């Protein structure tokens, strides 16, 4: 569902550009709104959310889709935690659909999806591992790396049980906006995937904005 934002970027309390291949880590407080903006189009923002006070509670892809009864995320979707609490709600979305089934690329999944010799290429799960090892104060490890949201990705499921990767939903300037229902740690890997035609083999930057 296409729903435009009512917020003005000039009033944002925080703005940061995240280059492709980098991670983003920030606590967003309950009541604040965070926007992820696709600056150049067809980028994938691989995103995980944790309870900022207890990262054992985290975004759960399967609980989210089951509780809303739909495999795609868009405006109105409530993002559920592993403890069955609402973490955030998508309050604006100019793409209309985001994926949470396809997961994030890893060095290892690059070997199976593309070619065995792709194993040393930078991947999203490596970005998250860098994030948690560079922030030991969070007390997080590989055990905390779970199934994510792929903002701006389109992964259609067919009635016959097929699953495909398509492009064409996002574009330069499209965004998704989420209101936090609890204090959440936002951890994004801005995808460095060079093997996927969805982004025309060209990973690009995103911008993250926060409003109080």
């Amino acid at each position, binding site marked *: 569902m296409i729903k435009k934002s009512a917020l003005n970027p000039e009033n944002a309390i925080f703005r940061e550009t995240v280059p492709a291949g980098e991670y983003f880590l920030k606590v967003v407080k309950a009541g604040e709104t965070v926007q992820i903006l696709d600056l150049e189009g067809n980028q994938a923002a691989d995103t995980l959310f944790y309870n900022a006070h207890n990262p054992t509670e985290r975004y759960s892809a*399967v609980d989210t889709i089951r509780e809303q009864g739909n495999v795609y995320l868009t405006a109105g979707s409530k993002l559920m935690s*592993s403890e069955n609490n609402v973490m955030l709600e998508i309050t604006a979305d100019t793409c209309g659909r985001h994926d949470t089934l396809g997961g994030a690329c890893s060095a*290892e*999944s690059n070997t*199976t999806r593309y070619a065995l010799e792709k194993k040393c290429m930078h991947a999203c799960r490596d970005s998250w591992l860098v994030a948690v090892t560079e922030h030991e104060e969070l007390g997080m490890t590989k055990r905390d790396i779970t199934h994510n949201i792929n903002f701006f990705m389109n992964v259609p499921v067919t009635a016959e*049980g097929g699953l495909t990767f398509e492009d064409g939903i996002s574009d330069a300037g499209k965004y998704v906006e989420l209101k936090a229902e609890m204090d959440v740690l936002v951890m994004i890997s801005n995808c460095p995937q060079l093997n996927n035609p969805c982004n025309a083999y060209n990973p690009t930057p995103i911008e993250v904005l926060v409003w109080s």
Partner: protein
Amino acid sequence: MAMLETATPLYDDLIPGGSHWSFIVRRGHVLRLIDETGGASVGMLMYNPENPLERYNMPDTLKNQHTFLLTQGHVLFSDMGRVFASIIRDDLGWHDTVSGTCNADMVEQRWGKKTYQEAHNHHHRNGFSSFLNELAKYGLGKKDLTANLNWFSKVKTDDGGNMAYVSDHSYAGATVDLRFEMDTIVVLHTCPHPLDTAPEYPSHPLRYQLFKAAPVTDADPCKNSSPEATRAFANTALYHMMQS
């Protein structure tokens, strides 16, 4: 039978409905899951006993095989690009791995609370607590929970992505054979599927059996089911080479 080396089970056991259990299946064995009475749903998680940080990965399993459902010919990927198990037989054609598992609130709201004091071993268990109970036996916990498999259950979608649980999908005697390509901690429960809306708490037992698997040949249908599966078998072979 071609993929089994032993015709009679090495082990045969029945897990009651609404229960949980776990064990390690060694590489080269087939775990046969049988819906004893019909209507079963079996939640399952998988970990590498040598390094439990390696675990079943739903997204890699689905996207590597361009599928939303699991059936014969598919392989079950770990997050390390390897194969825990191959589905060498499936009587049903569709198993779910996207719906997660039922929790205590859900079970109480749908079927009421039934404590041990009231019902002894027929008390209402839920999948979330059942998984945690078994995971704790291996030093694992909430952080290790991941998207699970729901054997014998079908959840389809329409063009808009709306999910629908298909009731009466499985029948008495329906069988799934999983050939393990790696040593694997198998954690399972027989609690209700989280989308099952049956009027009574669904309680269906699981019969499981273990067989010795026939050697995996280069012509193996699972190994050759997709280039992605073939590469995952190559990664798994490398892992085994480094173990010996």
